[in-house]
């Protein structure tokens, strides 16, 4: 007879296992508890026996035990990986992970329930921190979203509110012009200036609105058709020639196929690109504008001479509110290229730029046949 016979070994394994054990009788009262659990809790064995498991938990755990764990145990016969907090004799919290399983007779009557308890102080703290940091992030995200939404609504409202007074100024200038009341060259020049400024202001507001619209979730919406695009392109170039009569804009359009696009938006894209070329290009050199359909691709480009775009600026060129170095009076919002690239993307195409000492060239390309989606 060895001193460490099987019985003693099992007893030792039960008592001093690196986890807490307890068994609960069919009446819900604790029948056995091992030495590990009494050591962890500081609660003696005879204090456990005859009492209910939930009595050793904190109040939150008790409610949870009664509303979730006990029903589950009865319905599925076991539970695994439940987080619970024991209350120690010293009144401290002992965070654990618990598994339990019912043992039943062959006729289905409940014999007892075995519960295993693993000390999980660090694990539980870690999980708590994850939960906390997640809820912090969610709070931050919610605030951020709210702010962003307000900001964009503000821009949209502002855009609308700016249009009305501008329309009034424009109408006033038109009335003055038609009335013939202004005869002096100096006065007529003022009238021209008013009209130019109104147009410029109107463009700026359009940009703000497009930007706000693009950011308010919907993105830039297109209404496509296949009517000839060339007249629109011509019209845009003519407008800009009128606005900058001292500059030369040369065009070459070779559109042999129909382009399925939003013609107004493509016109806007071209207008923004030419406007950019006129602002930043060399004043004494022509701006070249071209469009063609070739190999299933529609291509539209605008090229100007002058100082190349600095490498640092190239990366941020299409970002909203990016502004290059120009005279204050020519300063825009920095939305023109951003909106142009948004229009390009909305068409399933892209806008690229190359800039060398010889030439700065923006190229828009889009497939003539839209991929089915």
């Amino acid at each position, binding site marked *: 007879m060895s001193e460490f016979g099987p019985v003693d070994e099992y007893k030792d394994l039960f008592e001093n296992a690196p986890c807490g054990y307890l068994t609960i009788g069919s*009446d*819900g009262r604790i029948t056995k508890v091992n030495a590990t659990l009494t050591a962890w809790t500081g609660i003696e064995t005879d204090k456990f026996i005859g009492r*209910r498991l*939930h009595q050793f938990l*904190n*109040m*939150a*755990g*008790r*409610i*949870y035990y*009664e*509303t*979730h764990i*006990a*029903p*589950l145990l*009865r*319905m*599925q016969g076991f*539970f*695994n*990986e*439940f*987080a619970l*907090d024991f209350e120690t004799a010293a009144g401290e919290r002992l965070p654990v992970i618990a598994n339990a399983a019912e043992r039943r007779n062959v006729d289905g009557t409940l014999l007892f329930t075995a519960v295993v308890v693993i000390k999980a102080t660090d694990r*539980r703290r870690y*999980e*708590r921190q994850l*939960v906390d940091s997640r809820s912090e992030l969610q709070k931050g995200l919610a605030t951020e979203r709210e702010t962003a939404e307000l900001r964009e609504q503000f821009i949209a409202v502002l855009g609308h509110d700016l249009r009305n007074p501008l329309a009034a100024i424009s109408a006033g200038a038109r009335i003055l012009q038609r009335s013939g009341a202004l005869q002096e060259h100096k006065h007529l020049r003022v009238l021209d200036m008013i009209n130019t400024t109104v147009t410029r202001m109107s463009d700026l507001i359009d940009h703000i609105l497009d930007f706000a619209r693009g950011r308010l979730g919907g993105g830039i919406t297109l209404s496509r058709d296949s009517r000839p695009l060339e007249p629109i392109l011509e019209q845009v170039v003519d407008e800009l020639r009128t606005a900058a009569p001292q500059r030369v804009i040369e065009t070459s359009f070779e559109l042999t196929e129909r382009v399925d696009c939003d013609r107004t938006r493509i016109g806007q894209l071209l207008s923004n690109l030419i406007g950019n070329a006129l602002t930043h290009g060399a004043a004494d050199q022509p701006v070249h504008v071209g469009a063609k359909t070739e190999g299933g691709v529609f291509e539209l480009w605008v090229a100007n001479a002058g100082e190349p775009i600095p490498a640092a600026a190239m990366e941020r060129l299409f970002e909203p509110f990016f502004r290059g170095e120009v005279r204050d009076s020519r300063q825009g919002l920095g939305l023109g290229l951003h909106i142009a690239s948004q229009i390009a993307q909305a068409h399933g195409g892209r806008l690229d730029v190359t800039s060398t000492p010889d030439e700065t060239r923006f190229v828009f390309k889009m497939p003539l046949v839209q991929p089915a989606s």
Partner: protein
Amino acid sequence: MEVLARNNVHMSGRGERAMVFAHGFGCDQNMWRFVAPEFEGDFKVVLFDHVGAGGSDLTAYDKTKYSTLHGYADDVVEIGRALGLKDAVFVGHSVSAMIGLLASLKAPELFGRMVLVGPSARYIDDGDYVGGFSEKQIAELLEFLEDNHMGWSAAMAPSIMGNPDRPELGEELTNSFCRTDPEIAKAFARVTFTSDNRDDLDKVTIPTLILQCSEDIIASEEVGKFVRSRIPGSEIVFLKATGHCPNLSAPAEVVSAIRAYV
């Protein structure tokens, strides 16, 4: 019908009268699995899940609507009307005792008898009133709920929600009777444990039976007696069953108490 799908309503049994079983905070209609079948011989048995629990339609969960027990009571009324219930028996466990009570005030024609299993009109102590919990303890509970996610994961939700009765999901069904979106679980816990229906009790006109467990920490004997004293003409039966869920731990006792009353 939309309402019946929303609340995962299941009907069985034969009989003229209906008996509606409502589950409480924690799990779902499976809580009645040992009790409801016993009444299928004499009653049309109606089981359902509150929105947010079990196999209910989670997309129907509306934070505002379900921020009070009235939202849940309105659902009970809708279910009752959809099924054309009249003079039915309402059996409500835990918080569903008060939900059924509110439903009966909204639509008195639906129910002819009410059985409240482990009811509490208010869980938090208030002056002389003993509910059994302090506000701090309930706040701790809400936090504690986040420590047990029941294996909930957003990716898994659709398979659980869409197929509550498919046993072949096997392992994934573990804990499913008591599993729900943690946000909803937390909100339901808040509504439940901060509810106060003490002023609604004396408006009840329907004969009411209270089943009171022993050693129930959620709804103590004192709380049960309070409910009994305020509902005019109500009766109380003290069960030998211990804990808060006699429908699972002592179904036979619950069945015979209900049978004796209805």
